[in-house]
Protein backbone atom coordinates (compact mmCIF):
# COMPACT_ATOMS: atom_id res chain seq x y z
CA UNK A 1 0.00 0.00 0.00
CA UNK A 2 1.22 3.46 -0.86
CA UNK A 3 1.72 5.70 2.12
CA UNK A 4 1.08 9.28 1.15
CA UNK A 5 0.06 12.06 3.42
CA UNK A 6 0.00 15.10 1.15
CA UNK A 7 -2.81 15.88 -1.21
CA UNK A 8 -1.92 14.78 -4.69
CA UNK A 9 -3.77 14.86 -7.93
CA UNK A 10 -4.63 11.34 -8.78
CA UNK A 11 -3.34 10.01 -12.04
CA UNK A 12 -5.26 6.81 -11.78
CA UNK A 13 -7.78 5.67 -14.31
CA UNK A 14 -11.31 6.79 -13.97
CA UNK A 15 -13.22 4.77 -11.49
CA UNK A 16 -15.41 2.03 -12.73
CA UNK A 17 -18.12 2.33 -10.18
CA UNK A 18 -21.03 0.84 -12.01
CA UNK A 19 -23.73 -1.38 -10.75
CA UNK A 20 -23.38 -4.82 -12.25
CA UNK A 21 -26.22 -7.16 -11.37
CA UNK A 22 -26.95 -4.95 -8.39
CA UNK A 23 -23.44 -5.43 -6.97
CA UNK A 24 -20.88 -2.71 -6.91
CA UNK A 25 -17.72 -3.14 -8.90
CA UNK A 26 -14.78 -2.40 -6.64
CA UNK A 27 -13.10 0.93 -7.10
CA UNK A 28 -9.53 1.04 -8.31
CA UNK A 29 -8.70 3.69 -5.78
CA UNK A 30 -7.46 2.61 -2.39
CA UNK A 31 -9.38 3.68 0.69
CA UNK A 32 -6.54 6.07 1.49
CA UNK A 33 -6.74 7.68 -1.96
CA UNK A 34 -10.38 8.33 -1.25
CA UNK A 35 -9.61 9.73 2.21
CA UNK A 36 -7.35 12.27 0.53
CA UNK A 37 -9.95 13.23 -2.07
CA UNK A 38 -12.57 13.62 0.67
CA UNK A 39 -10.26 16.11 2.39
CA UNK A 40 -9.11 17.89 -0.77
CA UNK A 41 -8.79 21.64 -0.08
CA UNK A 42 -10.75 22.48 -3.22
CA UNK A 43 -13.53 20.00 -2.58
CA UNK A 44 -16.96 21.64 -2.67
CA UNK A 45 -18.32 22.33 0.80
CA UNK A 46 -21.84 23.09 2.03
CA UNK A 47 -21.75 26.74 0.99
CA UNK A 48 -20.97 25.68 -2.58
CA UNK A 49 -23.95 23.36 -2.63
CA UNK A 50 -26.13 26.11 -1.19
CA UNK A 51 -25.03 28.43 -3.98
CA UNK A 52 -25.60 25.90 -6.76
CA UNK A 53 -28.58 23.89 -5.54
CA UNK A 54 -30.81 26.07 -3.42
CA UNK A 55 -32.64 29.06 -4.83
CA UNK A 56 -33.19 30.52 -1.39
CA UNK A 57 -31.47 30.08 1.95
CA UNK A 58 -32.66 31.85 5.08
CA UNK A 59 -30.03 31.13 7.66
CA UNK A 60 -31.29 30.85 11.23
CA UNK A 61 -28.94 31.29 14.13
CA UNK A 62 -28.32 30.12 17.65
CA UNK A 63 -29.16 27.26 20.00
CA UNK A 64 -31.08 29.54 22.43
CA UNK A 65 -28.90 28.34 25.31
CA UNK A 66 -25.35 29.41 24.71
CA UNK A 67 -24.28 30.73 21.31
CA UNK A 68 -24.29 30.33 17.55
CA UNK A 69 -21.91 27.64 16.33
CA UNK A 70 -20.46 28.43 12.90
CA UNK A 71 -19.38 24.83 12.34
CA UNK A 72 -22.98 23.79 11.72
CA UNK A 73 -25.33 26.10 9.86
CA UNK A 74 -28.98 25.77 8.94
CA UNK A 75 -32.17 27.42 7.88
CA UNK A 76 -35.11 27.41 5.49
CA UNK A 77 -34.10 26.62 1.92
CA UNK A 78 -35.72 25.89 -1.41
CA UNK A 79 -34.55 23.20 -3.80
CA UNK A 80 -36.38 23.28 -7.14
CA UNK A 81 -39.88 23.98 -5.85
CA UNK A 82 -39.47 21.97 -2.68
CA UNK A 83 -39.14 23.92 0.56
CA UNK A 84 -36.95 22.20 3.17
CA UNK A 85 -35.02 22.74 6.37
CA UNK A 86 -31.35 22.60 5.46
CA UNK A 87 -28.77 21.75 8.13
CA UNK A 88 -25.13 20.92 7.63
CA UNK A 89 -21.51 21.04 8.67
CA UNK A 90 -19.89 23.96 6.97
CA UNK A 91 -16.16 23.87 6.25
CA UNK A 92 -14.51 27.12 5.28
CA UNK A 93 -13.30 28.10 1.83
CA UNK A 94 -10.05 29.55 3.15
CA UNK A 95 -7.68 28.90 6.04
CA UNK A 96 -9.05 31.94 7.83
CA UNK A 97 -12.65 30.90 7.37
CA UNK A 98 -11.81 27.40 8.44
CA UNK A 99 -10.47 28.71 11.72
CA UNK A 100 -13.63 30.78 12.16
CA UNK A 101 -15.77 27.70 11.43
CA UNK A 102 -13.54 25.46 13.57
CA UNK A 103 -12.95 23.18 10.55
CA UNK A 104 -16.60 22.11 10.80
CA UNK A 105 -15.98 20.50 14.18
CA UNK A 106 -19.16 21.39 16.02
CA UNK A 107 -19.59 21.97 19.73
CA UNK A 108 -22.72 21.13 21.75
CA UNK A 109 -24.30 24.45 20.75
CA UNK A 110 -23.98 23.39 17.11
CA UNK A 111 -25.83 20.12 17.71
CA UNK A 112 -28.43 21.90 19.84
CA UNK A 113 -29.01 24.48 17.12
CA UNK A 114 -29.42 21.62 14.63
CA UNK A 115 -32.00 19.97 16.88
CA UNK A 116 -33.87 23.24 17.31
CA UNK A 117 -34.09 23.60 13.55
CA UNK A 118 -35.24 20.00 13.11
CA UNK A 119 -38.04 20.60 15.61
CA UNK A 120 -38.86 23.78 13.73
CA UNK A 121 -39.04 21.75 10.52
CA UNK A 122 -41.54 19.44 12.23
CA UNK A 123 -43.58 22.46 13.33
CA UNK A 124 -43.61 23.78 9.74
CA UNK A 125 -44.05 20.30 8.24
CA UNK A 126 -40.92 20.58 6.13
CA UNK A 127 -38.59 17.74 5.19
CA UNK A 128 -35.07 17.99 6.61
CA UNK A 129 -31.98 17.76 4.42
CA UNK A 130 -28.64 17.42 6.20
CA UNK A 131 -25.17 17.72 4.70
CA UNK A 132 -22.44 15.85 6.53
CA UNK A 133 -18.84 17.00 6.29
CA UNK A 134 -16.82 17.00 9.51
CA UNK A 135 -13.61 15.46 10.82
CA UNK A 136 -15.60 14.87 14.03
CA UNK A 137 -17.23 16.66 16.93
CA UNK A 138 -14.84 19.13 18.56
CA UNK A 139 -12.67 17.47 21.24
CA UNK A 140 -12.07 20.33 23.66
CA UNK A 141 -12.61 21.24 27.30
CA UNK A 142 -15.53 23.59 26.71
CA UNK A 143 -17.27 21.02 24.50
CA UNK A 144 -17.02 18.37 27.23
CA UNK A 145 -18.06 20.87 29.87
CA UNK A 146 -21.22 21.78 27.99
CA UNK A 147 -22.11 18.17 27.22
CA UNK A 148 -20.78 17.16 23.81
CA UNK A 149 -21.89 13.57 24.40
CA UNK A 150 -25.33 14.56 25.64
CA UNK A 151 -25.97 16.89 22.71
CA UNK A 152 -25.10 14.22 20.14
CA UNK A 153 -27.02 11.52 22.03
CA UNK A 154 -30.07 13.75 22.18
CA UNK A 155 -29.98 14.49 18.45
CA UNK A 156 -29.62 10.82 17.54
CA UNK A 157 -32.55 9.93 19.79
CA UNK A 158 -34.78 12.77 18.62
CA UNK A 159 -34.02 12.17 14.94
CA UNK A 160 -35.21 8.58 15.34
CA UNK A 161 -38.71 9.90 15.95
CA UNK A 162 -38.72 13.21 14.06
CA UNK A 163 -42.08 13.41 12.30
CA UNK A 164 -40.84 14.69 8.94
CA UNK A 165 -38.70 13.00 6.27
CA UNK A 166 -34.91 13.28 6.69
CA UNK A 167 -32.42 12.93 3.84
CA UNK A 168 -28.72 13.00 4.77
CA UNK A 169 -25.93 13.48 2.27
CA UNK A 170 -22.32 12.69 3.20
CA UNK A 171 -20.43 15.12 0.97
CA UNK A 172 -16.92 14.83 2.41
CA UNK A 173 -15.82 13.52 5.78
CA UNK A 174 -18.32 11.61 7.88
CA UNK A 175 -16.43 11.80 11.15
CA UNK A 176 -17.95 9.45 13.72
CA UNK A 177 -20.45 10.71 16.31
CA UNK A 178 -19.93 14.24 15.05
CA UNK A 179 -21.42 13.15 11.73
CA UNK A 180 -24.14 10.92 13.16
CA UNK A 181 -25.33 13.81 15.34
CA UNK A 182 -27.10 15.21 12.27
CA UNK A 183 -27.12 11.97 10.28
CA UNK A 184 -30.00 9.75 11.37
CA UNK A 185 -32.15 9.88 8.25
CA UNK A 186 -34.65 7.95 6.17
CA UNK A 187 -32.15 7.97 3.30
CA UNK A 188 -28.38 8.22 3.61
CA UNK A 189 -26.70 9.28 0.38
CA UNK A 190 -22.97 9.45 -0.04
CA UNK A 191 -20.67 10.94 -2.65
CA UNK A 192 -18.43 8.36 -4.29
CA UNK A 193 -15.27 9.88 -2.79
CA UNK A 194 -16.71 10.71 0.61
CA UNK A 195 -15.84 8.70 3.71
CA UNK A 196 -17.84 7.71 6.78
CA UNK A 197 -16.00 6.26 9.74
CA UNK A 198 -16.35 5.32 13.39
CA UNK A 199 -12.91 6.87 14.03
CA UNK A 200 -10.42 8.72 11.84
CA UNK A 201 -7.95 6.39 10.12
CA UNK A 202 -5.17 8.23 11.96
CA UNK A 203 -6.88 7.77 15.31
CA UNK A 204 -7.54 4.10 14.69
CA UNK A 205 -3.94 3.53 13.55
CA UNK A 206 -2.53 5.21 16.64
CA UNK A 207 -4.62 2.96 18.91
CA UNK A 208 -4.57 -0.41 17.12
CA UNK A 209 -1.25 -0.06 15.29
CA UNK A 210 0.29 2.19 17.94
CA UNK A 211 1.44 4.48 15.13
CA UNK A 212 -0.63 7.04 13.22
CA UNK A 213 1.45 6.51 10.08
CA UNK A 214 -0.44 3.24 9.56
CA UNK A 215 -3.52 5.33 8.70
CA UNK A 216 -3.72 3.93 5.15
CA UNK A 217 -3.94 0.39 6.57
CA UNK A 218 -6.55 1.48 9.08
CA UNK A 219 -8.52 3.25 6.33
CA UNK A 220 -8.63 -0.01 4.39
CA UNK A 221 -9.57 -2.12 7.41
CA UNK A 222 -12.30 0.24 8.62
CA UNK A 223 -14.39 -0.02 5.41
CA UNK A 224 -15.01 3.71 5.20
CA UNK A 225 -15.69 4.16 1.50
CA UNK A 226 -19.10 4.66 -0.06
CA UNK A 227 -18.83 1.34 -1.88
CA UNK A 228 -17.98 -0.63 1.23
CA UNK A 229 -20.81 1.05 3.13
CA UNK A 230 -23.35 0.37 0.41
CA UNK A 231 -22.35 -3.29 0.55
CA UNK A 232 -22.77 -3.32 4.33
CA UNK A 233 -26.20 -1.69 3.90
CA UNK A 234 -25.28 1.33 6.00
CA UNK A 235 -26.01 3.83 3.21
CA UNK A 236 -28.76 3.79 0.60
CA UNK A 237 -27.24 5.35 -2.47
CA UNK A 238 -23.96 6.53 -3.99
CA UNK A 239 -23.77 9.81 -5.86
CA UNK A 240 -21.13 9.42 -8.54
CA UNK A 241 -18.48 12.14 -8.64
CA UNK A 242 -16.99 13.35 -11.92
CA UNK A 243 -13.56 12.09 -13.06
CA UNK A 244 -10.96 12.76 -10.46
CA UNK A 245 -13.32 13.99 -7.80
CA UNK A 246 -16.02 16.52 -6.95
CA UNK A 247 -13.48 19.37 -6.93
CA UNK A 248 -12.90 19.04 -10.68
CA UNK A 249 -16.43 19.93 -11.73
CA UNK A 250 -18.63 21.86 -9.31
CA UNK A 251 -21.50 22.19 -11.77
CA UNK A 252 -21.68 18.48 -12.43
CA UNK A 253 -21.49 17.30 -8.84
CA UNK A 254 -23.95 19.86 -7.53
CA UNK A 255 -26.41 18.86 -10.28
CA UNK A 256 -26.01 15.21 -9.31
CA UNK A 257 -26.55 15.96 -5.63
CA UNK A 258 -29.60 18.11 -6.43
CA UNK A 259 -31.18 15.36 -8.51
CA UNK A 260 -30.49 12.72 -5.89
CA UNK A 261 -32.01 14.80 -3.09
CA UNK A 262 -35.10 15.66 -5.15
CA UNK A 263 -35.63 12.09 -6.24
CA UNK A 264 -35.54 10.86 -2.64
CA UNK A 265 -37.66 13.69 -1.27
CA UNK A 266 -40.33 13.05 -3.88
CA UNK A 267 -40.76 9.51 -2.58
CA UNK A 268 -40.49 10.36 1.10
CA UNK A 269 -42.96 13.26 1.26
CA UNK A 270 -45.75 10.95 0.12
CA UNK A 271 -45.26 8.42 2.90
CA UNK A 272 -47.66 8.81 5.85
CA UNK A 273 -45.80 9.86 9.02
CA UNK A 274 -46.56 6.70 11.03
CA UNK A 275 -45.29 4.52 8.18
CA UNK A 276 -42.23 6.74 7.76
CA UNK A 277 -41.34 6.40 11.45
CA UNK A 278 -41.93 2.66 11.46
CA UNK A 279 -39.68 2.28 8.42
CA UNK A 280 -37.00 4.45 9.99
CA UNK A 281 -37.09 2.32 13.13
CA UNK A 282 -36.83 -0.85 11.05
CA UNK A 283 -33.98 0.62 9.01
CA UNK A 284 -31.84 1.29 12.07
CA UNK A 285 -32.93 -1.90 13.85
CA UNK A 286 -31.54 -3.87 10.94
CA UNK A 287 -28.05 -2.31 10.81
CA UNK A 288 -25.21 -4.44 12.10
CA UNK A 289 -23.91 -7.96 11.72
CA UNK A 290 -23.77 -10.51 14.51
CA UNK A 291 -24.10 -14.21 15.06
CA UNK A 292 -27.04 -16.05 16.53
CA UNK A 293 -26.48 -19.62 17.56
Amino acid sequence: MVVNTGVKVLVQKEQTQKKVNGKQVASQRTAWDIVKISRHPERPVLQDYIKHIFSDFMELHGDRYFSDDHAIIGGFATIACQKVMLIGHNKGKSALENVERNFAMAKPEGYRKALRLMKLAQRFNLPVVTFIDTPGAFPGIEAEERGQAESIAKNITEMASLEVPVVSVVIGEGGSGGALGIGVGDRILMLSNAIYSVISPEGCASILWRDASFAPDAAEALNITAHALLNHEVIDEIIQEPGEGAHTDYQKITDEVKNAILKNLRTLVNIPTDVLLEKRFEKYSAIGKFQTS
Partner: protein
Amino acid sequence: MAWYSKAITEKKQQKNTLWVKCKQCGSHIWQDEWDNNLNVCPNCNFHGSISAHQRAELLFDDGTFYEMFTDISPVDSLNFKDLKGSYKDKIEENKKKTGISESVVSGRGQISGIPAVASIMDFRFLGGSLGSGTGEKILQAANFAYDNHLPYIVFSASGGARMQEGVLSLMQMAKTCAGVARLNKKDIPFISVLTNPTTGGVTASYAMMGDLNIAEPGAVIGFAGRRVIEQTIGEKLPEDFQTAEYLLEHGFIDAIVNRKDLKEYLSKVLSYYNR
Protein backbone atom coordinates in the same frame (compact mmCIF):
# COMPACT_ATOMS: atom_id res chain seq x y z
CA MET B 1 -6.56 5.70 26.09
CA ALA B 2 -6.90 5.63 29.83
CA TRP B 3 -9.35 2.73 29.98
CA TYR B 4 -7.03 0.65 27.87
CA SER B 5 -4.08 0.91 30.23
CA LYS B 6 -6.41 0.32 33.14
CA ALA B 7 -7.59 -2.87 31.50
CA ILE B 8 -4.00 -4.04 31.32
CA THR B 9 -3.43 -3.28 34.99
CA GLU B 10 -6.54 -5.20 35.79
CA LYS B 11 -5.30 -8.20 33.86
CA LYS B 12 -2.10 -8.17 35.87
CA GLN B 13 -4.12 -8.04 39.04
CA GLN B 14 -6.07 -11.11 38.09
CA LYS B 15 -2.89 -13.15 38.17
CA ASN B 16 -2.38 -12.40 41.84
CA THR B 17 -5.00 -14.21 43.81
CA LEU B 18 -3.87 -13.14 47.28
CA TRP B 19 -4.34 -9.41 47.16
CA VAL B 20 -5.46 -6.63 44.92
CA LYS B 21 -3.63 -3.35 44.49
CA CYS B 22 -6.03 -0.43 44.31
CA LYS B 23 -5.48 1.52 41.11
CA GLN B 24 -6.33 4.79 42.78
CA CYS B 25 -4.64 4.84 46.17
CA GLY B 26 -2.20 1.97 45.62
CA SER B 27 -3.04 0.21 48.86
CA HIS B 28 -2.98 -3.58 48.99
CA ILE B 29 -6.28 -5.22 49.83
CA TRP B 30 -6.86 -8.89 50.51
CA GLN B 31 -8.73 -10.53 47.67
CA ASP B 32 -11.49 -11.71 50.05
CA GLU B 33 -11.99 -8.24 51.39
CA TRP B 34 -12.01 -6.79 47.85
CA ASP B 35 -14.63 -9.34 46.78
CA ASN B 36 -16.79 -8.81 49.83
CA ASN B 37 -16.65 -5.08 49.27
CA LEU B 38 -17.98 -5.54 45.68
CA ASN B 39 -14.62 -4.63 44.07
CA VAL B 40 -14.59 -1.28 45.85
CA CYS B 41 -11.47 -0.12 47.69
CA PRO B 42 -12.22 0.05 51.44
CA ASN B 43 -9.60 2.80 51.83
CA CYS B 44 -10.36 5.29 49.07
CA ASN B 45 -13.77 4.14 47.74
CA PHE B 46 -12.37 3.52 44.24
CA HIS B 47 -14.98 1.53 42.30
CA GLY B 48 -13.22 -1.19 40.32
CA SER B 49 -14.72 -3.14 37.44
CA ILE B 50 -17.31 -5.77 38.19
CA SER B 51 -18.66 -8.46 35.88
CA ALA B 52 -22.11 -8.12 34.33
CA HIS B 53 -23.38 -11.25 36.05
CA GLN B 54 -22.13 -10.05 39.45
CA ARG B 55 -24.01 -6.84 38.86
CA ALA B 56 -27.17 -8.68 37.87
CA GLU B 57 -26.89 -10.60 41.13
CA LEU B 58 -26.53 -7.36 43.10
CA LEU B 59 -29.42 -5.67 41.32
CA PHE B 60 -32.15 -8.27 41.09
CA ASP B 61 -33.94 -10.09 43.89
CA ASP B 62 -32.60 -13.59 44.54
CA GLY B 63 -33.55 -16.06 41.85
CA THR B 64 -35.58 -13.60 39.77
CA PHE B 65 -33.01 -12.72 37.07
CA TYR B 66 -33.71 -14.34 33.74
CA GLU B 67 -31.08 -13.70 31.09
CA MET B 68 -32.27 -13.02 27.55
CA PHE B 69 -30.80 -12.96 24.04
CA THR B 70 -27.83 -15.11 25.09
CA ASP B 71 -27.49 -16.51 21.56
CA ILE B 72 -26.14 -13.21 20.19
CA SER B 73 -22.39 -12.91 19.69
CA PRO B 74 -20.03 -10.81 17.53
CA VAL B 75 -18.97 -11.68 14.01
CA ASP B 76 -15.94 -10.37 12.14
CA SER B 77 -17.89 -9.06 9.16
CA LEU B 78 -15.16 -6.71 7.90
CA ASN B 79 -12.43 -9.34 8.23
CA PHE B 80 -10.60 -6.80 10.37
CA LYS B 81 -6.90 -7.27 11.01
CA ASP B 82 -4.52 -4.97 12.82
CA LEU B 83 -0.93 -5.29 13.92
CA LYS B 84 -1.77 -7.66 16.74
CA GLY B 85 -4.00 -9.99 14.79
CA SER B 86 -7.54 -10.51 13.64
CA TYR B 87 -10.78 -9.40 15.25
CA LYS B 88 -12.03 -12.95 14.76
CA ASP B 89 -9.35 -14.30 17.12
CA LYS B 90 -10.00 -11.51 19.59
CA ILE B 91 -13.68 -12.46 19.76
CA GLU B 92 -12.84 -16.07 20.61
CA GLU B 93 -10.20 -14.98 23.15
CA ASN B 94 -12.67 -12.70 24.90
CA LYS B 95 -15.43 -15.28 24.93
CA LYS B 96 -13.08 -17.75 26.57
CA LYS B 97 -11.68 -15.20 29.02
CA THR B 98 -15.04 -13.88 30.21
CA GLY B 99 -17.46 -16.75 29.71
CA ILE B 100 -19.93 -14.39 28.04
CA SER B 101 -20.57 -13.95 24.33
CA GLU B 102 -20.93 -10.16 23.97
CA SER B 103 -19.97 -7.03 25.90
CA VAL B 104 -23.44 -6.77 27.40
CA VAL B 105 -25.77 -9.04 29.36
CA SER B 106 -29.50 -8.38 29.02
CA GLY B 107 -32.33 -9.79 31.08
CA ARG B 108 -35.35 -9.22 33.23
CA GLY B 109 -36.18 -9.76 36.86
CA GLN B 110 -37.46 -8.08 39.97
CA ILE B 111 -35.87 -5.24 41.88
CA SER B 112 -37.31 -5.20 45.41
CA GLY B 113 -40.39 -6.82 43.95
CA ILE B 114 -40.71 -4.41 41.01
CA PRO B 115 -40.39 -6.05 37.59
CA ALA B 116 -37.79 -4.42 35.32
CA VAL B 117 -35.55 -5.04 32.32
CA ALA B 118 -31.80 -4.40 32.39
CA SER B 119 -28.80 -4.44 30.10
CA ILE B 120 -25.46 -4.58 31.86
CA MET B 121 -22.22 -3.93 30.03
CA ASP B 122 -19.14 -5.95 30.92
CA PHE B 123 -15.87 -4.06 30.55
CA ARG B 124 -13.84 -7.29 30.46
CA PHE B 125 -15.28 -8.17 27.05
CA LEU B 126 -13.34 -6.15 24.47
CA GLY B 127 -13.27 -3.12 26.76
CA GLY B 128 -17.06 -3.10 26.89
CA SER B 129 -17.01 -1.79 23.33
CA LEU B 130 -20.27 -1.23 21.47
CA GLY B 131 -20.44 -3.73 18.63
CA SER B 132 -23.36 -4.89 16.47
CA GLY B 133 -24.18 -7.69 18.91
CA THR B 134 -24.06 -5.27 21.84
CA GLY B 135 -26.40 -2.88 20.04
CA GLU B 136 -28.74 -5.71 19.17
CA LYS B 137 -28.94 -6.96 22.77
CA ILE B 138 -29.56 -3.45 24.09
CA LEU B 139 -32.26 -2.77 21.48
CA GLN B 140 -33.93 -6.16 21.97
CA ALA B 141 -34.10 -5.56 25.72
CA ALA B 142 -35.52 -2.06 25.10
CA ASN B 143 -38.11 -3.61 22.78
CA PHE B 144 -39.02 -6.16 25.46
CA ALA B 145 -39.47 -3.31 27.95
CA TYR B 146 -41.55 -1.46 25.35
CA ASP B 147 -43.80 -4.42 24.58
CA ASN B 148 -44.31 -5.26 28.26
CA HIS B 149 -44.41 -1.73 29.61
CA LEU B 150 -41.51 -2.32 32.01
CA PRO B 151 -38.88 0.16 33.20
CA TYR B 152 -35.51 -0.27 31.49
CA ILE B 153 -32.12 0.17 33.16
CA VAL B 154 -28.77 0.16 31.35
CA PHE B 155 -25.45 -0.09 33.17
CA SER B 156 -22.67 1.25 30.96
CA ALA B 157 -18.97 0.38 31.14
CA SER B 158 -17.35 0.98 27.81
CA GLY B 159 -14.50 2.54 25.90
CA GLY B 160 -16.95 3.45 23.11
CA ALA B 161 -17.83 2.12 19.68
CA ARG B 162 -15.97 -1.03 18.55
CA MET B 163 -13.47 0.05 15.90
CA GLN B 164 -13.15 -3.47 14.50
CA GLU B 165 -16.70 -3.27 13.19
CA GLY B 166 -16.20 0.09 11.44
CA VAL B 167 -19.30 2.17 10.76
CA LEU B 168 -21.51 -0.79 11.68
CA SER B 169 -20.53 -0.09 15.29
CA LEU B 170 -21.12 3.66 14.90
CA MET B 171 -24.63 2.89 13.66
CA GLN B 172 -25.35 0.98 16.86
CA MET B 173 -25.56 4.39 18.50
CA ALA B 174 -28.50 5.20 16.23
CA LYS B 175 -29.96 1.73 16.67
CA THR B 176 -29.94 1.77 20.47
CA CYS B 177 -31.22 5.37 20.60
CA ALA B 178 -34.08 4.42 18.28
CA GLY B 179 -35.10 1.96 21.00
CA VAL B 180 -34.79 4.64 23.67
CA ALA B 181 -36.86 7.03 21.52
CA ARG B 182 -39.72 4.52 21.44
CA LEU B 183 -39.60 4.17 25.24
CA ASN B 184 -39.76 7.96 25.51
CA LYS B 185 -42.83 8.07 23.27
CA LYS B 186 -44.61 5.52 25.42
CA ASP B 187 -43.46 7.22 28.65
CA ILE B 188 -41.62 4.18 29.89
CA PRO B 189 -38.82 5.08 32.31
CA PHE B 190 -35.28 4.58 31.08
CA ILE B 191 -32.56 4.79 33.73
CA SER B 192 -28.91 5.00 32.79
CA VAL B 193 -26.21 4.02 35.27
CA LEU B 194 -22.76 5.17 34.19
CA THR B 195 -19.83 3.26 35.64
CA ASN B 196 -16.10 3.46 35.15
CA PRO B 197 -15.38 4.09 32.32
CA THR B 198 -18.18 5.30 30.03
CA THR B 199 -16.71 7.11 27.04
CA GLY B 200 -17.01 7.82 23.32
CA GLY B 201 -19.95 6.48 21.36
CA VAL B 202 -21.64 4.92 24.38
CA THR B 203 -21.73 8.24 26.24
CA ALA B 204 -22.86 9.95 23.02
CA SER B 205 -25.84 7.63 22.72
CA TYR B 206 -27.99 5.73 25.24
CA ALA B 207 -25.78 6.31 28.31
CA MET B 208 -26.56 10.04 28.36
CA MET B 209 -30.21 9.57 27.45
CA GLY B 210 -31.51 8.32 30.78
CA ASP B 211 -34.59 9.92 32.27
CA LEU B 212 -32.28 9.62 35.23
CA ASN B 213 -28.52 9.47 34.79
CA ILE B 214 -26.86 7.88 37.82
CA ALA B 215 -23.12 7.38 38.22
CA GLU B 216 -20.80 5.47 40.51
CA PRO B 217 -18.26 7.60 42.42
CA GLY B 218 -15.14 8.55 40.49
CA ALA B 219 -16.32 6.99 37.21
CA VAL B 220 -14.61 8.44 34.15
CA ILE B 221 -17.38 9.69 31.84
CA GLY B 222 -16.70 11.66 28.69
CA PHE B 223 -16.92 11.93 24.95
CA ALA B 224 -13.42 12.53 23.60
CA GLY B 225 -10.44 10.77 25.14
CA ARG B 226 -8.31 12.65 27.62
CA ARG B 227 -5.21 12.36 25.44
CA VAL B 228 -7.02 13.65 22.34
CA ILE B 229 -8.24 16.73 24.22
CA GLU B 230 -4.80 17.37 25.67
CA GLN B 231 -3.35 17.20 22.17
CA THR B 232 -6.02 19.58 20.86
CA ILE B 233 -5.53 22.22 23.52
CA GLY B 234 -1.86 21.60 24.13
CA GLU B 235 -2.05 21.46 27.91
CA LYS B 236 -2.66 19.05 30.76
CA LEU B 237 -6.22 18.62 31.96
CA PRO B 238 -7.23 18.93 35.62
CA GLU B 239 -7.37 15.70 37.65
CA ASP B 240 -11.14 15.67 38.09
CA PHE B 241 -11.91 16.35 34.41
CA GLN B 242 -14.52 13.90 33.03
CA THR B 243 -15.26 12.30 36.39
CA ALA B 244 -18.75 11.55 37.70
CA GLU B 245 -18.28 14.42 40.17
CA TYR B 246 -17.35 16.81 37.33
CA LEU B 247 -20.46 15.78 35.38
CA LEU B 248 -22.66 16.20 38.45
CA GLU B 249 -21.25 19.70 38.87
CA HIS B 250 -22.02 20.49 35.20
CA GLY B 251 -25.58 19.23 35.33
CA PHE B 252 -25.43 15.96 33.38
CA ILE B 253 -25.90 13.49 36.24
CA ASP B 254 -28.78 13.26 38.71
CA ALA B 255 -26.85 11.57 41.49
CA ILE B 256 -23.68 9.73 42.40
CA VAL B 257 -24.43 6.52 44.27
CA ASN B 258 -22.08 4.02 45.90
CA ARG B 259 -22.22 0.54 44.44
CA LYS B 260 -23.42 -0.97 47.70
CA ASP B 261 -26.37 1.44 47.78
CA LEU B 262 -27.35 1.20 44.12
CA LYS B 263 -30.05 -1.43 44.46
CA GLU B 264 -31.77 0.44 47.25
CA TYR B 265 -31.50 3.69 45.31
CA LEU B 266 -32.95 2.21 42.12
CA SER B 267 -35.73 0.46 44.05
CA LYS B 268 -36.69 3.77 45.56
CA VAL B 269 -36.70 5.50 42.17
CA LEU B 270 -38.83 2.74 40.67
CA SER B 271 -41.24 2.97 43.60
CA TYR B 272 -42.05 6.48 42.36
CA TYR B 273 -43.06 5.12 38.95
CA ASN B 274 -46.83 5.32 39.11
CA ARG B 275 -47.83 3.39 36.02
